[in-house]
């Protein structure tokens, strides 16, 4: 639909953009990204004819844009500018009606039914119909921007160029505006090319992205090919990290600020744990990066308090999360800062160990009860009950996400091995148990000190975790057995 070949141009003799070539297909949304001064707005202005090109061609609908008259071009390409001021008052409808300018010709150029339909439709599409007789300057920034979207839509051009359309808009209006544009693109097959300031918004709404650097294309492709840590860091000269979007297969990036304060050495030791008859808790001064299968605040996050709470074996509650949250609050824990687990085991039998390696220490806490032990390979239909082997692994070191997962694998294998050595059997099948039906696992790291890239059993960290979890689980099982009066 739009084809740009070897395009160069800018304000003066010295071109600001150089040798830009790309294609945009019908109905596609292409986002233009780049740091300030990389030439993204200039590129858009050259395409729309505001700035002169020095070299190359812009083809619209297969025709060189240079052969179109201004009006013909406006029938093919509509442009949505950034928010701007206006000198004299206009009503919303009059403003939107200006979008029909390229469709009118002749001295009197009467207003046709077609014009009226296009304007009414555009007003409705952007949700500004109820303001149609209001003066535009009386509207809020977000509403004004919608009016200009309506103006561009009333142009009914197959190509829409946008220059940072969400500038000055709050997040709700950003979403509304971009949803409208994406809907328009998919419903009417309109081709959209938009400059974005916000990398994450561009990733969410665009089919493809064009990343500019110093007036040239740094990379062009689908969001996952463009929004890569190395590329973004280099082009924007900023420390970033990318991560998946929680709902869509689109990458998102986040800035990694350089901390100004000096890092004080920060380690966790056994003394940070508190054991009462009610719960085991760990409170630390700085948040730990945590991955867990807890009841409250499971998943990945940063937390400063960890609670393993004892509940009755017959504990039954409709909404475990709410009940647990209430419990935590009553005991003075902040819900946003605490990971909460439950166990039917008496918490006084918790086994806590501190294991030292070359890089630093690992702490392990295990509470184990094997009353409802399960052989996982035979566990097709079992009723779920309160967890009985809860394991915490706290690492004094820096772990990447994959190391968290490796640590979980290692810890689970060590637990299973401990059950085997202790000859814990699934009471139903009589086979060796691999765990209980609702075990929980938590891995947390200070993210300070030594960088520990892996946590598999072959690495020093993995070895320590394996040994620590095995050791603590064995001791916890023995304590449980002793308390129950079993003999092994």
């Amino acid at each position: 639909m739009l084809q740009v070949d070897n395009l160069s141009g800018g304000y003066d003799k010295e071109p600001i953009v150089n040798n830009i070539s790309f294609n945009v297909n019908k109905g596609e949304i292409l986002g233009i990204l780049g740091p300030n001064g990389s030439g993204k707005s200039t590129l858009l202005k050259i395409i729309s004819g505001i700035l002169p090109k020095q070299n190359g061609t812009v083809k619209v609908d297969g025709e060189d844009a240079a052969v179109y008259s201004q009006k013909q071009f406006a029938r093919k390409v509509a442009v949505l500018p950034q928010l701007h001021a206006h000198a004299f008052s206009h009503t919303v409808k009059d403003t939107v009606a200006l979008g029909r300018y390229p469709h009118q010709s002749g001295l009197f150029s009467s207003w046709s039914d077609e014009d009226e339909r296009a304007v009414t439709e555009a007003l409705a599409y952007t949700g500004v119909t109820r303001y149609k007789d209001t003066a535009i300057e009386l509207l809020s920034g977000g509403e004004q921007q919608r009016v200009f979207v309506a103006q561009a839509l009333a142009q009914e051009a197959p190509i829409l160029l946008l220059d940072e359309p969400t500038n000055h808009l709050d997040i709700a209006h950003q979403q509304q505006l971009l949803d409208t544009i994406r809907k328009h693109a998919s419903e009417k097959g309109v081709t959209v090319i938009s400059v974005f300031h916000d990398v994450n918004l561009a990733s969410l709404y665009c089919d493809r992205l064009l990343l500019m650097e110093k007036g040239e294309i740094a990379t062009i492709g689908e969001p996952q090919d463009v929004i890569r840590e190395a590329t973004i860091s280099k082009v924007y000269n900023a420390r970033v990290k990318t991560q998946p979007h929680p709902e869509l297969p689109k990458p998102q990036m986040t800035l990694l600020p350089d901390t100004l304060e000096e890092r004080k050495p920060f380690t966790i030791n056994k003394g940070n744990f508190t054991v009462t008859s009610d719960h085991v808790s760990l409170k630390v001064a700085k948040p730990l990066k945590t991955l867990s299968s807890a009841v409250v605040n499971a998943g990945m996050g940063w937390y400063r308090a960890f609670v393993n709470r004892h509940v009755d074996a017959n504990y039954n509650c409709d909404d475990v999360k709410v009940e647990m949250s209430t419990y935590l609050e009553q005991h003075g824990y902040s819900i946003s800062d605490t990971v909460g687990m439950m166990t039917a085991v008496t918490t006084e039998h918790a086994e806590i160990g501190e294991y030292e390696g070359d890089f630093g220490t690992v702490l392990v806490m295990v509470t184990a009860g094997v009353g409802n032990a399960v052989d996982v390979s035979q566990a097709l239909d079992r009723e779920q009950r309160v967890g009985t082997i809860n394991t915490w692994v706290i690492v004094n070191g820096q772990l990447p996400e994959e190391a968290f997962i490796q640590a979980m694998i290692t810890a689970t294998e060590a637990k299973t091995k401990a059950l085997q050595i202790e000859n814990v059997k699934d009471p139903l099948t009589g086979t060796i148990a691999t765990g209980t039906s609702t075990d929980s696992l938590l891995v947390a790291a200070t993210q300070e000190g030594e960088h520990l890239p892996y946590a598999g059993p072959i690495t020093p960290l993995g070895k320590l975790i394996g040994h620590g979890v095995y050791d603590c689980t064995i001791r916890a099982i023995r304590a449980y057995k002793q308390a129950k009066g079993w003999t092994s």
Partner: protein
Amino acid sequence: MNKATIAYIVSAATLLVAVWLGVSIGTVKIPISTFWDSSDTTASNILWKIRMPRVILAGLVGASLAISGAAFQGLLKNPLADPYTLGVSSGASVGAVVTLFFGLSIPILGTYTLPVFSMTGAALTMFLVIGFARLVDRSMKMETIILTGIIFGSFLGSVLSLMIALTGEELRQIIGWLLGSVSMRGWNYILMVLPFVAIGSFILWMNRRELNAMLFGEERAHHLGVNVKQRKFMILIGGSILTGSAVAVSGTIGFVGLVVPHMTRLMWGSDHRHLLTLSFMNGATLLIICDLIARTIISPSELPVGVITAFIGAPVFAYIFYRQRRKGAM
């Protein structure tokens, strides 16, 4: 009936009333019957030979100034712009004052030497201003046009001041001309100015929708499909033709071109599709009324009509200025 229709009816009606008042009031009262009954020769002569041409000329001048003021304000996106912003009027004044100062009279032109010289001054200035603005900045940004107008306007203004300073006998005549008047001009002046008014107004009217688009900025207008350079050029030429010819026949009558577009906007909105025509009518009305006051208020003597327009215009201008500033401060 929509708002625009009402606006046209109201404006046309007030214009008709103004015309009627303009021709009937004076030292001799003219009854309405004189229009069709020419039995009273004196009344008929006063109506057709003196008052009617004066009212029509006042109307044409007022209309020209108001429509070009509306167009310049829209084009320059500046509520303080008026037909004189471009400096063309100063050129016209210099042409006229040179004629008076040197007592020039070209034989074939006779008494029309002054308006012809004045129009020539206006035309020369127009080409100089537009040419210079293009030289400075090929895209002729609004700021460039305004600044160029100020440069030429003040330079020509100082030429005027110089001539006034050096003048002796003709001082009263020059000042009187500069303040503006439409008295004792006759039908020939109307015939002289009419083609310019028609052409200038037509050019502006052809650009009514483009002016609407340009209110949102040149870039936006460009995106909407307006050939901005060409249209801007047309509007500047059209407005200059109107201003130059109006000043040539009547002197520099102030405030009509500034105030009438604003009053029209306040009453009927700033859509140029209607604003231009309505300003045209209201400008005519205002100047006819002002001229009526100018010639009757200290009768049998006359005041220059420029005094009256400024007298009414200044407070209105102050009000608009105040409003604009308040709006800007919010």
